[in-house]
C-alpha cells in the first residue's frame, strides 16, 4: 500500500513538473505557427518616443538602420548643404577648389543640365567611400567578434570594418602599406574600428580612391586618396543610433570638417529592402527618354 502510494505520488510529481514545460512548448508551437509575412520593403520606423525608449545593448550596432527622409543627401552632405550660404562654404585648398570646379554635378548650387554632367555616378561607377554613407536607403549591419559588416542598399554594396585590433594601414602614394606590403587603393578603403566605450564604435578609414574616380557628394565636392575618414556610431538607446562622419583630407581641404550626424532608428529586422541598382541600360534609357531631351535648348 505504502509502495503504491509512493509510486502514485512520484507519478503525480513528475506529471506536475513536466506539465508547465509542455504547456510552454505548446504555446510556443502555437506562436510559431503564425505565418511569416513580407513587411513593407522600405524603412518606416521614425524616432522612438521618450516613454518607449529602452536601454542600449552594449557593444553592438546589429540591425537595419535608417534616418528616413534624409535620403541620398542630394543637396550636399547633411551638415554642409551646397546652397551657397557662407556657413556652408568648405575650406578648400587651391587644388581642392580646382578639382571642385572641374566637376559638373546634377545637384547643388553649381548643378548643370543632365546632358552636361560628368558625375561618375551617371556611368554607374561605384560611388566609393564615404559617398555610400550619404545614401541612406536603409543600412543593414551584421557584426561578429572580428568585424562589422555594413550593407548599403544603393547598388547592394558592402564594406568590412575590422574590430579585431589590427592596425590602420599606412597611406602611401596610390594606396596603402600593410606590414611592408604595398596594397591598392579601394572603393571602400580599409576600415578599422574600436569600441571607445560600451556604446560608441569609432571607425577610421584610409586607402580610398583618388579624386579623379570618386566624389564626396552629389553636388561635386571632391575627396582624395589621402583622406582619413572618421566615423562614430553611438548607440543612444536600443532603437537609436547616432552616426557621425568627419573628413580629414589635407590634399583637398585645409582642415578637418564634419559632414553628417544622423539620428537613425532601428528598423523592422524582417525588411527585405527594395533594390536600387545602377543599371547602365536603365540609365541610358532614362537619358534618351527624358534627361537629354528635357535639357536640350
Amino acid at each position, binding site marked *: 500500500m505504502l509502495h503504491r502510494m509512493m509510486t502514485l505520488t512520484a507519478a503525480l510529481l513528475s506529471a506536475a513538473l513536466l506539465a508547465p514545460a509542455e504547456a510552454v512548448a505548446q504555446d510556443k508551437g502555437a506562436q510559431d505557427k503564425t505565418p511569416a509575412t513580407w513587411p513593407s*520593403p522600405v524603412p518606416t520606423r521614425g524616432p522612438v518616443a521618450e516613454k518607449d525608449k529602452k536601454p542600449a545593448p552594449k557593444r553592438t550596432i546589429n540591425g537595419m538602420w535608417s534616418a528616413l527622409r534624409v535620403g541620398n543627401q542630394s543637396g550636399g552632405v547633411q551638415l554642409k548643404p551646397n546652397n551657397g550660404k557662407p556657413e556652408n562654404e568648405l575650406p578648400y585648398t587651391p587644388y581642392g577648389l580646382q578639382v571642385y570646379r572641374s566637376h559638373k554635378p546634377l*545637384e547643388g548650387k553649381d*548643378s548643370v543640365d*543632365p546632358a552636361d554632367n560628368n558625375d561618375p555616378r551617371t556611368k554607374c561607377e561605384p560611388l566609393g567611400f564615404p559617398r555610400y554613407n550619404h545614401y541612406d536607403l536603409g543600412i543593414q549591419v551584421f557584426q561578429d567578434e572580428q568585424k562589422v559588416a555594413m550593407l548599403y542598399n544603393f547598388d547592394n554594396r558592402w564594406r568590412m570594418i575590422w574590430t579585431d585590433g589590427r592596425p590602420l594601414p599606412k597611406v602611401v602614394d596610390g594606396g596603402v602599406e600593410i606590414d611592408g606590403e604595398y596594397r591598392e587603393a579601394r572603393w571602400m578603403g580599409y576600415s578599422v574600428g574600436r569600441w571607445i566605450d560600451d556604446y560608441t564604435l569609432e571607425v577610421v578609414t584610409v586607402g580610398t580612391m583618388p579624386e579623379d574616380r570618386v566624389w564626396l557628394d552629389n*553636388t561635386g565636392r571632391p575627396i582624395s586618396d589621402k583622406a582619413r575618414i572618421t566615423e562614430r556610431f553611438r548607440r543612444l538607446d536600443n532603437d537609436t543610433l547616432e552616426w557621425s562622419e568627419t573628413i580629414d583630407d589635407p590634399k583637398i581641404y585645409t582642415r578637418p570638417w564634419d559632414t553628417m550626424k544622423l539620428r537613425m532608428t532601428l528598423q523592422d529586422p524582417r525588411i527585405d529592402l527594395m533594390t536600387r541598382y545602377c543599371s547602365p541600360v536603365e*540609365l541610358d534609357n532614362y537619358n534618351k527618354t527624358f534627361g537629354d*531631351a*528635357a*535639357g536640350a535648348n
Partner: protein
Amino acid sequence: MIVVGVAVAVAVLTAVPVHGHHSGSTLFSEKTSTLKGSVAKWVWSNPHCLLTVDVKGDDGQLVSWLIELQAPNTIYPAGYRINTFKPGDPVTVAVHAVSNGRPYARVVSVTLADGKTLGDGVRADTPAP
C-alpha cells in the same frame, strides 16, 4: 514659353522647400502648373520613374507630357506602386515644367481618379499615403 495646345493652370506655391534634385540648374521652373489628362504610360525604373500623360489643349490637340518622379524606393513610401497607373487612367498632376517650354516636367503631386493625392516622396510636406 508655354507649349501651344496644352491646357495648363499655373499656380504659384509659396514657401516651397527647394527640391534637392537638380536644384541649382535652370532645368526646371520653380512655378507649379497643373496638368489634367489621361495616363499613356507608367515606367517603374531607376534612376527615375516616368509618367506619360496625354493632355488635351483648348484646340483639342493632344500633347504628350513626360513627367519625372524619383526612383521606386524613394516614392514607394509616398504610396506609389508598380501598378499605380494604367493607360487610360484620368489623372491630375502638379508639376514643375522644364524652363525651355518643352512638355517635360518633374512631379510635385499626383491626384488619382479616386481623389487620392500622392506627393513626390521627397519633400517633408509630401502627403502621406
